[in-house]
């Protein structure tokens, strides 16, 4: 019976779906506006770098409909914001460091009035040289934080023993988050110089503390509330704060409700993206193609201020060797300061950038040594008992398991044979394939952040209210939290309401990020539910005069004692408990055990567990036009024991396609002056329905899971993105089938432009 019940719970559809399909779900811009709500519009720098010589908005401020124009001088608290290092001015005062940097805030009665005011503002900036290349910034000594090195074994001696040594460079581009809902915030003043703030953010604490810091008041005066996001993907982790600060600055000063929601093009030019990387690698192998030594140097393009780049840099190092066991490793990473918008978190958080480099190095080695890339990949997959370069011992490796399973399930030899035949028969169309293994560590690498809280109220009519620190942004966290509650109380999901995420109910939240949201908040929620459950069980024992050892269960809202059903329902127990003055509310807390990391030696046990998987990608390249299609992606993925199959499948498919987009068509283009050229949906292309793989097969590898995952259901948010890297190598292989001498740098994205240029390139 219990198994059956869990099963029903496991297949529940996303509880938000009904609201979504009817258009009734609420996002920031849908909140009913209070009378007198003002519009806040940001005036940003048109120059990539320079000294502000003059700002004159005296004429604009006198225009009808303009309430106030704010400059840096009008900030009551601190102007400098930033989650890790406070190095970013909310409003630029003396200098601008990137195109799109906010300088002024216009607050107006209407959008039209604000537009009119813009025409009457004079900003003069004396230009300074612009640097957009991370290697150039490094040469100039422009770094955002201290460089880091992870070391294992001794590469210097190891390289002397290698049969093969190859060196090269690899590059990955930026990626625009393109959450369908732009950034935004709506602030309104409440009594006591306080604010209620609706923000489209993944990180409530960061928004709350940043607004408090800017206004010079305590965090307790800022209530942040989030119903849901129209997508986040990391872009609303720290960068939601700016919009919230703008709305709050105006609302708090003017004591009127203020909305600050950018137009798509404003959002795109003012916010940072996935950090582009330029990297050097050196790989050494023995005669059996075992990787003996690997060295990589990463030049991260951080943009104009630190934002989350230092943490992203760290995860690049953590995932620099992907799924491979390499005895001698040295990875060095530099966070380079450039005149671009501060780059930021994006699904994978530096991991994909690091993994691309080692995959490029292995592919390079294979091509030069004249063996198949898959041979080297398979020969080096990690096994239990070995050590990650950061000191954690591999204890849960499913790397070979996933690889072998997908190779067998989809008959890789057959795929290879078919491709070979196809390529022989077709002169102007070629196919290619690749395998992409993934190993991704779960936990915030900053150990402190691995904590969460939840608040549960059981009302005396038997209905339940659940608050956690988790933000619903499409990943289905509400549904998973509902499942945790329903399963723990043994009640119908219909009795449970998921509340908005709110800082007055759950304080000091960690952002919904790092794939860890379900684990952290689920465990905290489980803790809260268990507290109430224990109290209710005690009530049951009292009612039936049962001894403390008797086992009380609630299944399908009915009470069981020692497996025997009693004539007592959930509703009745709750009512009895209330009459007996038992506390029907609980606050749960969770802090991930075991994990630690010592930055002084760059060693420790930073991850609760790892998630594994392998994907086969097959592509077809039109060798006349340089265009391509993804025929199929077959993946075997380690879910542990999934808590919700449909939702987890959606995460895999969505992450995969986002990764393919990053590797293929999504090209962030800045010109030399730091102006974003791919500044709208017409110039920045993300996958549409016609460009996704024709066939996607995801196999749920049943594994032990981890006790540190909620109900042993492993985290699923970020890992699948990296399957997309396979598309790059599959396309590259198809090009080589057409032109074996083609010059194809390991530079992603591999756009139709790069494909065509490579197809017709000639090795001189």
């Amino acid at each position, binding site marked *: 019976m219990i198994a059956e019940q869990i099963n029903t719970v496991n297949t529940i559809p996303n509880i938000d779906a009904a609201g979504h399909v009817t258009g009734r779900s609420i996002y920031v811009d849908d909140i009913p506006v209070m009378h007198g709500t003002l519009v806040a519009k940001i005036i940003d720098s048109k120059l990539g770098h320079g000294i502000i010589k003059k700002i004159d908005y005296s004429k604009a401020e006198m225009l009808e409909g303009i309430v106030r124009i704010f400059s840096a001088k009008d900030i009551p608290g601190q102007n400098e914001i930033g989650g890790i290092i406070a190095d970013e001015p909310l409003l630029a005062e003396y200098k601008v460091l990137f195109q799109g940097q906010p300088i002024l805030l216009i607050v107006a009665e209407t959008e039209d009035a604000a537009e009119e005011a813009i025409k009457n503002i004079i900003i003069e900036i004396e230009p300074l040289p612009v640097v957009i290349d991370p290697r150039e910034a490094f040469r100039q000594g422009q770094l955002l934080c201290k460089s880091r090195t992870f070391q294992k074994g001794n590469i210097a001696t190891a390289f002397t023993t290698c049969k093969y040594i190859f060196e090269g460079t690899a590059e990955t581009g930026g990626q625009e988050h393109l*959450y369908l809902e732009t950034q935004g915030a709506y602030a309104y003043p409440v009594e006591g110089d306080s604010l209620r703030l609706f923000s489209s953010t993944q990180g409530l604490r960061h928004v709350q503390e940043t607004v408090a810091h800017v206004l010079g008041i305590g965090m307790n005066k800022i209530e942040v509330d989030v119903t849901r996001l129209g997508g986040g993907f990391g872009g609303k982790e720290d960068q939601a704060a700016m919009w919230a600060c703008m709305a709050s600055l105006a609302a708090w000063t003017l004591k009127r409700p203020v909305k600050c929601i950018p137009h798509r093009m404003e959002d795109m030019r003012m916010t940072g993206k996935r950090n582009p990387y330029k990297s050097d690698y050196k790989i050494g192998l023995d005669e059996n193609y075992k990787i003996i030594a690997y060295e990589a140097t990463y030049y991260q393009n951080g943009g104009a201020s630190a934002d989350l780049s230092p943490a992203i840099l760290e995860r690049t190092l953590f995932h620099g060797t992907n799924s491979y066991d390499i005895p001698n490793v040295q990875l060095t990473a530099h966070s380079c300061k450039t005149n671009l918008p501060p780059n930021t978190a994006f699904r994978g958080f530096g991991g994909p950038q690091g993994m691309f480099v080692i995959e490029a190095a292995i592919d390079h080695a294979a091509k030069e040594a004249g063996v198949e890339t898959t041979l080297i990949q398979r020969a080096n997959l990690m096994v239990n008992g070995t050590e990650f370069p950061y000191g954690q011992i591999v204890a849960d490796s499913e790397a070979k398991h996933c690889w072998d399973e997908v190779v067998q399930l989809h008959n890789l030899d057959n795929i290879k044979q078919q491709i070979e035949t196809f390529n022989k028969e077709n002169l102007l169309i070629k196919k290619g394939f690749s395998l992409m293994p993934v190993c991704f560590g779960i936990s915030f690498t900053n150990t402190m952040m691995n904590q969460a809280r939840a608040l549960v109220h059981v009302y005396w009519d038997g209905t339940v209210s659940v608050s956690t620190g988790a933000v619903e942004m499409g990943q289905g966290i509400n549904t998973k939290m509902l499942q945790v509650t329903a399963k723990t109380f043994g009640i119908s999901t219909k009795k449970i309401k998921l509340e908005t995420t709110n800082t007055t109910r759950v304080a000091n939240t960690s952002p919904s990020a790092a794939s860890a949201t379900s684990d952290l908040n689920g465990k905290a929620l489980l803790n809260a539910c268990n507290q109430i459950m224990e109290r209710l069980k005690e009530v049951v024992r009292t009612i039936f005069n049962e001894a403390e050892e008797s086992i009380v269960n609630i299944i399908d809202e009915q009470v069981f004692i020692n497996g025997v059903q009693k004539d007592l329902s959930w509703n009745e127990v709750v009512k009895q408990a209330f009459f007996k003055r038992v506390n029907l509310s609980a606050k749960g807390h969770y802090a991930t055990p075991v994990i630690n990391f010592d930055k002084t030696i760059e060693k420790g046990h930073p991850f609760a567990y790892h998630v594994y998987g392998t994907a086969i990608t097959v592509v077809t390249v039109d060798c006349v036009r340089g265009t391509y299609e993804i025929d199929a992606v077959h993946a075997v993925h380690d879910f542990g024991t999934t808590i919700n199959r449909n939702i987890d499948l959606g995460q895999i498919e969505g992450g995969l396609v986002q990764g393919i987009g990053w590797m293929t068509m999504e090209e962030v283009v800045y010109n030399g002056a730091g102006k974003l050229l791919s500044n709208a949906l017409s110039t920045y292309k993300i996958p549409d329905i016609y460009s996704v793989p024709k066939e996607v097969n995801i196999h749920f590898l049943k594994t032990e899971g981890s006790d540190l995952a909620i109900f042993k259901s492993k985290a699923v948010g970020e890992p699948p993105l990296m399957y997309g890297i396979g598309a790059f190598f599959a396309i590259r292989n198809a090009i080589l089938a057409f032109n074996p001498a083609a010059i194809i740098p390991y530079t992603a994205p591999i756009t139709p432009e790069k494909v065509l240029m490579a197809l017709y390139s000639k090795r001189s």
Partner: protein
Amino acid sequence: MVQFILNNQTVTATQAKGSTILDYIRYYMRLMGTKIGCREGDCGACTILVGSLEADKLVYRSMTSCLMPLGNAQGKHIVTVEGINMQNISPVQQSIIDTNGTQCGFCTPGFVVSLTGFILGNKSTTYEQAVAAIDGNICRCTGYKSIERSAKIIAGSIAQKPESGTTDWLVINGFLPAYFLNIENRLRELQITNTLSPLENDTGKTKTIVAGGTDIVVQRPQMVKHSNVELLFDTRILRGIKEEEGQCIVGGGVTVTEFFESPLIQRIFPALAKHIKLVSSTPIRNMATMAGNIVNASPIGDMTVFFLALDASVVLARDSQQRTVKLKNFYKGYKQTDKEAEEIIIEILFDIPSEQTLFNFEKVSKRTNLDIASVNSACQLQMAFDTIETIHLSAGGVAPFPKYLSNTCAYLQGKKLETQTLEEALKIVNAEIAPISDARGSKEYKQLLLRQLVIAHFLQFFGPTEAIKKFLFQ
């Protein structure tokens, strides 16, 4: 004042007729299901259905409300997701829930509206058609596979839908609210009872001519909103496609969809479906007009490149004065045309090619569908045995305006398709064009790409002949 039916309600809007219907729906009517994703017709989050009486029959088409001037709603039925909602969830909505086809949900109302447009249409009800209906809807979360699964279910669920009495069947089977049954009559009444006054001019402001609005509202929404707009979209005399004395006459206001659906055009261009699929998306094709594409003078206008290879002419009119200009002579420079400010293009004319004539359209962009071309090209070819009798070759994205490659055409006339001829022709192409580097590609790429597309035309016509192979692999 603009009068129309919004969902089940007859409304009279007093807002500027050049303001967008999206703003009216969201911020005046507070119908929040219609979302704002990009305001440039590129994401579909704001998709609405627009029902209008075409040849006295009610036809629904999906459109992006962010680009639709409010004035274009005059006398029509505007449907938002709220107008689809019923007591029970519709099978379209249910299928998205069942397949987990929604994650963050922000794009979802747009998908629901587009798919409802699909079931309302009188076209075939295949899975491919269902997917085509959502080709303008972008989702960042799902990777579309679950949405494909839901499109399959939806296509299957309307397999029994009859060809006539479609609306009745859809209402009976719970796909649509019952009020849809009366819309056709209500729209007719709106017109017959003469409550529908012509849109008045706002003479104090500068005049702006707007057809589909799919470019000008993207580029200059504030200007359109605040000017005295002259809306051409519903001007009947600009619509229609006809054949007269061996010529095809396409009204300037004909939309890309109407062009594509015309039996005459489909007869002339048997491969049209493949070509049109490369042109923007369903909702944009439902709005964008032929004349709009031409006067816009964008260097990569798809339809312009198409018409250039037909050696088409445009008929320009001002009041009762008319003149005809060859399209290849229409462009004078970047965004400069031969058109006077007060003139409009009323017709596009081209000689109907003989059955032996070969025609092809090529387009490559960063994303194959719903994207602006890096380079596009069209070719019309008549052969006399193995010799080129006439050829018309056009290219976009390689010059300040859509380019008719006249020198190349002149050279190829009377030639056989040999490797050397191709080489020489491509040299002439290169001398005729002047691509620039931008977000859509470097100039070197565009040069190489046009070479490839010219070869692609010949490959389409003749397959990989020895001459072409030799050219490609030399």
